[in-house]
Every structure is written in C-alpha cells, then in structure tokens.
C-alpha cells in the first residue's frame, strides 16, 4: 500500500536498462556482473575446498565442473570479470570527478557534459574487451 502510494518504480524500474542511454545499461550490467561474480566466488571457494579431501575428491570435483556446461559458465565468468573490472575503473574514476567534464554555461539542446563520448567509448571498450576475453577463454577451455 505504502509502495503504491509513493509511486516508486521499484525493482522493475531499477533493473530496467532501457530508456536512459548506454550509461544506464552499463549501470545495470555492473550490478548483474557483480552479483554473478559474487555467486561464482562462493562457488569457487566451495569447489576448491575439495582439495583438502585428497586426490579422489578433487578429481571427482573436476569431473563435475570440467564439462561443456561448466566451461560455458566459466566463459561467462571471464566476460563478467573483464566487464566488471573495466567498467568499474571507469566508474571509480568518474566517482572521483575524473572524466566527467567541466562545469560551464549550458547551451541548448543541453547535452550533459558528464555523459560525454569518452564515457560512452569506455563502456563500449569494456563490452568489447569482455567479448574478446570470452572468445579467448572459450578457445582455451574448449580447445583440444
């Protein structure tokens, strides 16, 4: 009731990457990849813990994870990791006020200086690097 009265967009609105340009897509991807990487970290710590149970347990774990599905997940993790890192560095520098433009007299049609081509380029480069890393990762994992 309170939510309806406050007319908040809610999770649906927060997680909707459309409507506000590539910067909002990057925000959405950063969150999604962050959550994905945390899930992977927990899983990775759990899977590597099998080593304390000896060679048999370790080999059994490898048998379970070194499958085509496991490789697809690992390829996605590589992509998420590269995007989260590259875009994270962009966002971090932006948070310090670096690369967000300089204040000045706004002129019609009022293009925001903070949403400049450098920021957009960095986002596309992050996506491109993630795609390249995924391709390389897939070639290593599925190769031979």
């Amino acid at each position, binding site marked *: 009731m309170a939510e309806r009265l406050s007319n908040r967009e809610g999770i649906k*609105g927060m997680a909707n990457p459309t409507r506000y340009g590539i910067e*909002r897509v990057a925000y959405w991807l950063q969150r999604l990849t962050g959550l994905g990487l945390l899930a992977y970290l927990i899983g990775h710590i759990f899977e590597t813990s099998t080593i304390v149970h000896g060679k048999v347990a370790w080999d059994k774990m490898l048998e379970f994870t070194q499958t085509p599905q496991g490789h697809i997940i690992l390829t996605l993790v590589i992509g998420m990791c590269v995007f989260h890192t590259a875009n994270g560095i962009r966002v971090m520098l932006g948070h310090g006020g670096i690369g967000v433009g300089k204040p000045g007299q706004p002129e019609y049609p009022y293009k925001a200086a*903070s*949403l400049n081509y450098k920021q957009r380029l960095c986002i596309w480069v992050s996506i491109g690097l993630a795609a390249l890393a995924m391709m390389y990762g897939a070639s290593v994992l599925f190769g031979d």
Partner: protein
Amino acid sequence: MAVVTAPKPSEELISIDKTLDQLNTITLRIARSNPAEGHETTYSEFKVPVKKWTTVLEAILYVKQNLDHAVAVRYSCRQASCGSCGMKINGKPSLACYTKVSELHSNVITVEPMNNFPIIRDLAVDFKQLISNHKKMKPFIIREDSEVTPESKEFIQTPQDVEKYLQFSYCIKCGLCNAACPTMATDTSFIGPQGLAQAYRYVADNRDKGKEDRLKIVDDSHGIWRCHFAGSCSHVCPKGVDPAMAIQLLRGYLLGFQK
C-alpha cells in the same frame, strides 16, 4: 497617408505554412488515479487536434478545456522555467510544456505521473520529499560575515568562479532527475540527484564556507554513495544542470580528488 503593406509571401513559404498549419489528431492517454480515495490507476483516452508546435501540456489543457475538466495537472509558466509540469511522457520523465507532440513521433501519447513521487491525483505529484531533501543541503551561502553592516563589501567573483557553479544554479526543481534515478526507484531514504547537485552548487561557490557541513550531511548510508553514476538524471534534465556531473565532483571532495 502612407500605407505599409506586408510583402507578399512566396509560393514556397505559403506551402510550408500550410503544412505547419495542418491539423493532426492524436490519442492522448492520461493516467487517472486518486490514491487517497483508494482509486486504482485507469487510463482515459482523448482525441486531441494538434499542430506541429503543440506541446504535450497544450494537449492536456485542450482536454481540460473541452473534454474533461477534472484532469488534475500542475503547471504554471509554460516555458520550462517553473518546473511544475514534470510528468512521464511515453514512459520518460519530461516537462510537458517543453515536449512537442511532433517530436514524440507517435499518434498515441501516454502521460502518467512522475515515478518516485507520491501521487496526489492524476498527473499531480507530491514534492514534499524533494523540497525537504533540498532544504537539508542548506541551499544558501554559509559564512560568518554574511550580515550586511556599514563596513560590508561586496563578494567579488571572477567569471571563472561563477562558471564553477552557475549551471547547477539553473535547477528549477522539476524533479525529473529524481524520477529517472535508478536508486530513487527503490531507496526511499536516498537524498536524490536534485539535492546532491544543489549541495555541490553551494560547495563550488567560493563565497560559501559550509563545505564541511554539507559533506558531513551527504556522507551517509543513503547519501552520495548511493549514486552509481548511471547518468539517467542528466539524461532527462531539461535545463542542462547535469546533476550526474555535480554529484561526481562533490564526491571528489570526499575521495580527496578535489580540495
């Protein structure tokens, strides 16, 4: 007696004028609700004649004047100066007086109240939280010698000093930035891009001495750190205030990048 007659327009100009003058009819869908009375949102559809220069606000006022007087809408200046007519137009927060029907490239236009603001009725929303967060930022020059005395001298600022905050002082408090912000979509305690940008407007003013006070206020679990530079606020700002830039520059002080 001399008679001044206007020069006859050329054929080409007459034809352009006729095209501009052509009436087109659009369907205007207006979200109707009255949460206080427990009424759920419904959409009323109206056929509205428009010209190339008709704004969405004019289309809504046409409905109010001719088709349904009960549509609730807040407006005043009709020239993007007062910040009253912010609403969601075809899903995007915009000023109704500043959005031409023709630029929406659609024969069906849906207008809804801005998100992240409580609805009063139909398109009118409550600005209490925005104004309260704005006030929390101490939107005034803070300094001990601000009282005017016979010995007072004017505060001298160079054009460069003014340029550091001028664009942020153009905020008309329309609330579009808060409606577009992804954090505001779920975080009811977040200060919001409007308030944070105004905090920077005063911090960047070299007459002001309240930087430390304001930085303390925004350095909160629902303060400046809940901005993730998604840029949606700057995307919708109708005055070129660029709240995203102001917030990042303000955060620069907290991170030690700015002095």
